[in-house]
């Protein structure tokens, strides 16, 4: 799937180089002791960790990065946490720094490597499949139709929002795994930064309530669990994960035996969306001119939800205002009676 051509390449190179591990280690070791020229080889992260885990060994510990979407300037740390890196999506056994930072292959590290590396090309050798999926998605199609710049991978992925280190600083290095709870939490915010209405309505539903309370592991769905990751399509498209052709399968991933009635569930209730109420009222106003529209609105499951919500707001307001007043008056009456009684006993004593 994802790593098709490059994966093979890496494995071959790496297994070939396994024989070279000892010499590579010796070279690193001797250079550390005798300050001989250090040449960076593929198949070993040691020389990288040598400096990038220690603050005092780095010439530059922080770098300014411009966010490709917002143009915001953020500070990215150049320090690597080995444990965090190994737990990340790229932290597997046969994966090395040079695999991505290819312009450092064979670099001389005696004086440190050159300062500005080439941007990493994720697609050409490794992630060509998601890129292809993405180019077919509604995001790209709509952006092209509306003559807008198509968001590139890095607009979502290499933005500093997606990566983090154990130091709590955001850094563009440690790509988290898809199942990582913090990563999943950040994707909700990332989708929501454009699709604000959908984020708000998602929060009104059971799934969004739980993720809002901070639980974002894979047992509760975030946006991409239902809508897909790269190939996000309109529900009218037969390939869409939320279209009528595949929705039972999508819901069934979590809800065993999901049936045709169950999948009619409204995942984005509009109960707190003022605009939906406006369309409701407009449909009622124009009932005579456009009865079909009114029928459509009535048949929308959102309408019942809105009616139930408004009804409950009314019940709450009425109950608390009337009984609140009752309690308050009762309280004052009791106090007044006590005072009166006290006054009587005082008089009797005099």
């Amino acid at each position, binding site marked *: 799937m994802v790593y098709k051509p490059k994966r093979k390449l890496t494995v071959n190179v790496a297994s070939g180089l396994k024989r070279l591990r000892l010499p590579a280690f010796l070279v690193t070791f001797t250079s550390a002791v005798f300050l001989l020229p250090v040449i960076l080889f593929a198949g070993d992260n040691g020389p990288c960790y040598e400096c990038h885990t220690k603050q005092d060994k780095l010439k530059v510990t922080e770098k300014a990065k411009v966010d490709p979407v917002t143009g915001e300037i953020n500070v990215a740390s150049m320090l690597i946490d080995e444990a965090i890196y190994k737990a990340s999506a790229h932290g597997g056994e046969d994966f090395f720094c040079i695999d991505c930072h290819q312009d450092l292959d064979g670099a001389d590290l005696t004086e440190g490597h050159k300062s500005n590396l080439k941007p990493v090309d994720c697609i050409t050798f490794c992630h060509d499949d998601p890129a292809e999926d993405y180019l077919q998605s509604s995001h790209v199609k709509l952006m092209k139709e509306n003559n807008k710049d198509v968001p590139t991978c890095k607009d979502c992925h290499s933005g500093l929002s997606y990566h983090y280190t154990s130091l709590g600083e955001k850094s563009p290095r440690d790509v988290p795994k898809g199942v990582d709870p913090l990563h999943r939490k950040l994707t909700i915010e990332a989708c929501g930064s454009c699709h604000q209405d959908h984020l708000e309505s998602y929060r009104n539903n059971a799934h969004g309530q739980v993720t809002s*309370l*901070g639980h974002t592991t894979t047992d509760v769905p975030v946006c991409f669990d239902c809508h897909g990751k790269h190939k996000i399509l309109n529900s009218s498209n037969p390939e869409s994960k939320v279209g009528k052709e595949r929705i039972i399968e999508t819901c069934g991933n979590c809800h*065993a035996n999901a049936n045709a009635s*169950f999948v009619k569930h409204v995942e984005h209730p509009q109960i707190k969306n003022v605009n939906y109420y406006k369309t409701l009222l407009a449909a009622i106003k124009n009932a005579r001119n456009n009865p079909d529209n009114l029928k459509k609105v009535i048949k929308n499951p959102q309408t019942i939800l809105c009616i139930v919500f408004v009804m*409950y707001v009314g019940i709450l307001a009425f109950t608390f205002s009337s009984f609140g007043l009752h*309690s308050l008056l*009762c309280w004052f009456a009791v106090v007044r009676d006590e005072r009166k009684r006290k006054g009587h006993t005082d008089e009797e004593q005099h």
Partner: protein
Amino acid sequence: MSARERGILMKSNINYLRFSFFHRFCHFLIIISFFGLVLTGVPLAFRSYDWARWLYALFGGYPTAGYIHRICALITFFSAFMHFVYLFYNISVKKKKGFFWGPNSLLIQPRDIFDIIADIKWFMGIGKKPDFDRWIYWEKFEYLSLMWGTLVMAVTGLILWFPVQFTKIIPVSVATIVDLPSIALIIHRYEAILAAGFIFTIHFFHTHLLPEKMPVDEAIFTGRITEEEFKHERLNQFKRLENQRQLDNYKVAPSSLFVSFLTRLFAVPILITGLIMVGLMFSALLVWAL
């Protein structure tokens, strides 16, 4: 007469049994399950506030808090079941009268209308405190809303617990218009806010936190009230029992200071918890409104 003197006086006098052990036990079960339900459920409704996240994490977060919520729901079902078994047993087997009509009934009676009018007059200062019978009209309202609320919360809660099974029984053509789980969620959320808000304000201030009861009306825990309290709160019932020469049947030994202490030890933290919860919920409403 200071509060302390009054307390001693009320303790030392003749005591009557107001609540049987069964009713006290049911109230205790309801307290335990209600607080379990509120503390694990309210964070979901107020999800965007830090206190809600803290509270949810305190109860183990997802899914542990959900399990606690369901266990407490089962306790509520159990106490509701016991209540109806009690009613059925007394009405059908023991053939007791007065459950549906008369002063002992918890259903609304004509005299409740007069009680309400008399009470409003007393609030305004144009009349004196009305003489109530065994159940005051707001107590009846609380009981009936508890019954209704439990039913609503149980039905909607079960739909949310088993959404796949419940939707299976409705046809697709209906399900496209009536989204059962979403309706259940909305009703469950706002009925819960209604119930929690009602218990923690109206119920607390009407029974436990009145100036004469502060901090807790011990009757529902010890079952006992003194003669003074009885005459002061429910003079009609007192006179009625006196006329029927039944008053002596209800006479009991006063509760010991230790039981009284235990009651306060249990009830006061619970009352404070409820007040904090309603304070947080109300502050959330203010934040939203402002």
